[in-house]
């Protein structure tokens, strides 16, 4: 018996013509170029056709929700950055809004507009990463580098404003961490003005490309009914023809003052989801433009809430109350009233829900993130079963999961 025979017995018994052959079990991931991190999909193959697909998750579990329970409310913000590392500001926003809801804090308008502006930039950056990785999965290599080139400009804005490219922690409870540096709006304007042209470039390469259309049209179809049944949200839901967007349905952070459309497609396939995300980039550009108009040049960026929002540097240095509050906030934190809140926002991937329960202590009793990637990933077997291996890659791509967010 040669080495071949031994190995066969180890994996699966293959029968001869006497009986039906066993399906081939293929482990896609956790180390695989196109599972976007450490997703593992166990595929049951009949030749190249996927009979069954089972996503196995948990390889990136970092216990963020549990860790939040041992931090004060303010400290937990830094953990939220790491949930969806492609859209850290969206996570910051969701968590801050939840705690502000718990506290009943009203954030100044200026801070609200800046939050909208930056989260929309985050959405653009996140969609650019999605576009690039999805395109490279399907073999269009250049789009990846183009979209990362543009994302880099947005990252530079984040670094300029918050001091960090990715783990910004820029939104704080009651407002923003810092006053944005002078001239930041000019940088935003430069990026935003060039963005529609760049999106046109991507579309030139892909949208009417015959190969691209053949690879994505009719692939991974998710019906509207299935999408709702599985709790799918975000661009995936809108690609299936349901115009649901938390920004419109449950406006937060003054989104109701902005004029934008909810792009939808009815086909529900990978191509539809691609078109929806491309259109969302354009809509986000519109929102950022409006936000640039609205943001006042001067004004408070933090709520007036002594004991919860840290005092300014000057106040801390000159008044005794300021010094005391500063000391108390950064040592023991603040104490919100006991109770539970749930806040949803529209993250780039869909509906990000944050549940915070307070027991009247300075640390949250329980924090739970309803992350869109985790829920959207449920639809993967439905999308790719009965199709070819190559389609699995396309389907994972348009599900747009971030494994940090799936596993938390």
């Amino acid at each position, binding site marked *: 018996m040669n080495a071949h025979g031994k190995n066969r017995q180890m994996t699966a018994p293959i029968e001869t013509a006497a009986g039906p052959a066993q399906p081939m079990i293929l482990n896609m991931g956790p180390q695989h170029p196109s599972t976007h991190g450490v997703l593992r999909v166990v595929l049951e193959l009949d030749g190249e056709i996927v009979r069954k697909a089972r996503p196995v998750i948990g390889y990136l579990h970092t216990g963020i929700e549990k860790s939040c329970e041992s931090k004060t409310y303010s400290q937990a913000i830094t953990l939220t950055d790491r949930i969806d590392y492609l859209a850290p500001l969206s996570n910051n926003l969701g968590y801050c809004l939840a705690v502000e809801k718990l506290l009943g804090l009203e954030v100044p308008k200026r801070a609200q507009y800046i939050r909208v502006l930056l989260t929309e930039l985050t959405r653009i950056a996140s969609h650019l990463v999605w576009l690039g990785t999805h395109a490279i999965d399907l*073999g269009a*290599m250049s789009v990846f580098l183009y979209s990362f080139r543009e994302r880099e400009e947005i990252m530079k804005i984040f670094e300029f404003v918050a001091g960090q490219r990715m783990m910004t922690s820029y939104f704080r409870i009651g407002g923003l961490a810092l006053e944005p540096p002078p001239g930041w709006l000019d940088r935003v304007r430069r990026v935003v003005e060039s963005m529609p042209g760049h999106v046109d470039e991507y579309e030139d390469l892909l949208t009417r490309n015959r*190969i691209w259309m053949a690879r994505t049209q009719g692939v991974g179809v998710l019906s509207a009914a299935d999408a709702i049944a599985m709790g799918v949200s975000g661009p995936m839901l809108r690609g299936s023809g349901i115009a649901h967007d938390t920004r419109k349905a449950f406006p937060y952070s003054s989104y109701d003052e902005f004029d934008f459309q909810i792009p939808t497609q009815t086909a529900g396939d990978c191509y539809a989801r691609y078109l929806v995300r491309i259109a969302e980039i354009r809509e986000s550009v519109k929102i950022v433009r409006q936000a640039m108009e609205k943001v006042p040049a001067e004004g408070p960026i933090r709520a007036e809430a002594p004991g919860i929002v840290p005092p300014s540097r000057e106040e801390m240095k000159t008044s005794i109350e300021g010094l005391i509050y500063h000391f108390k906030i950064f040592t023991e934190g603040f104490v919100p009233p006991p109770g539970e809140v749930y806040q949803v926002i529209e993250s780039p991937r869909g509906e990000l829900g944050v549940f915070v329960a307070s027991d009247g202590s300075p640390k949250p009793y329980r924090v739970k993130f309803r992350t869109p990637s985790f829920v959207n990933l449920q639809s993967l077997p439905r999308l790719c079963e009965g199709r*070819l*291996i190559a389609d699995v890659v396309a389907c994972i791509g348009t599900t747009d999961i971030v494994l940090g967010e799936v596993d938390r």
Partner: protein
Amino acid sequence: MEFISQHPVLVAAVVKVVVLLFVVMTALAYLTWLERKVVAHIQSRWGPYYVGAHGLLQPLADGIKFLFKEDVTPPASDRLIYLLAPFLALSLALTALGLIPFGPPGVRFPNGQPVFIVSDVSIGLLFLFAITSLGVYGVALAGWSSNSKYPLLGALRSSAQMISYEVSLTVSVVGVLLLAGTLNFNHIIEGQRGYWHWLRIVPHWYIVPQIVGFLCYLTAAIAETNRVPFDLPEAETELVAGFHTEYSSFKFAMFFMAEYANMITVSCLATILFFGGWLSPFPDRWTWQLYLPGAGLLALGVYCAYDSVTEMRGLARLQLSVVTLLALGGGALCLLPGVAPVIQGPFWFTAKVLGFLFFYIWIRGTLPRFRYDQLMSFGWKLLLPVSLANLVLTAAWFAWGWVRG
């Protein structure tokens, strides 16, 4: 000395094979450099830049790195076949290049042997197809003997793809054979001398009547060499690395070299069949074309000199100076009255092949990848019927004397 004078064919063949191997190996290495540079500039990056001036030593560094990597043989593999597959792939790919005429047969060594033709086979095209068709064995055996799932899937895809497109590839060039009336490469090229009588400026290349055949050939050739958009066998994002997933170290490099050698082969073939091989596109009376190779090299040398003075520092400047001297010296050599006519054939041949290679790389920077079933239906339902129709049409034209061969 007696031996040399007694065996002119053998001695010339050995010399030519050694030189060809050296040239081809260098060309393969620098083809990877070219590909990385061109794709990088398409994608607004620099590509290799630090290993040598403009990354010119990168291929060398890669080669050394390949040699020093651990050579892993998976315990469950079929060792003999696993070892054999890369050798098969590379040796077949290199053998095919031995059939290519790089210049006119008129240029001869003192002992009467042609300089630029390693082997002048009367059924050259048939022989070449016979060898390249065997290339699928390297892929299939590699995938099978690795005894792993991704390579197996890659090898299955690859075998199916290469066999399918082989058909279209062969059918698409039969039109040229009808026009040329021979399978010998030199005769095919000689048949393209002159001009189409109804258009004095268009050279008598077979691409003009055989444009459809050429497009079919080009598509099939890209598929045959497993390049984007038909690179399914090694579709990195689906099958990790396809049939050579389990290969490492120099065995992997051999597959890599085989792929690039195949790329060169099909480009050479396209040049020979459709673009007049080593013939110049200009009429013979334009004698200034004799100085084109020299002028080109001199221009390159001047550019390198400028670059080494303005851009490069330290070691890179030294390296680029060497390139400058080589280019200037080569350019001057090519301008010598004795050398200029000799170098014409290889110059035009290389220029045309480089054009094709650039096109290949350009496509890689632009297009997404087909899916397996789409690839198959494209090959069988579109490419094959079109190339067959082209063949029938050409035969009809030929039968009624509409095209003079």
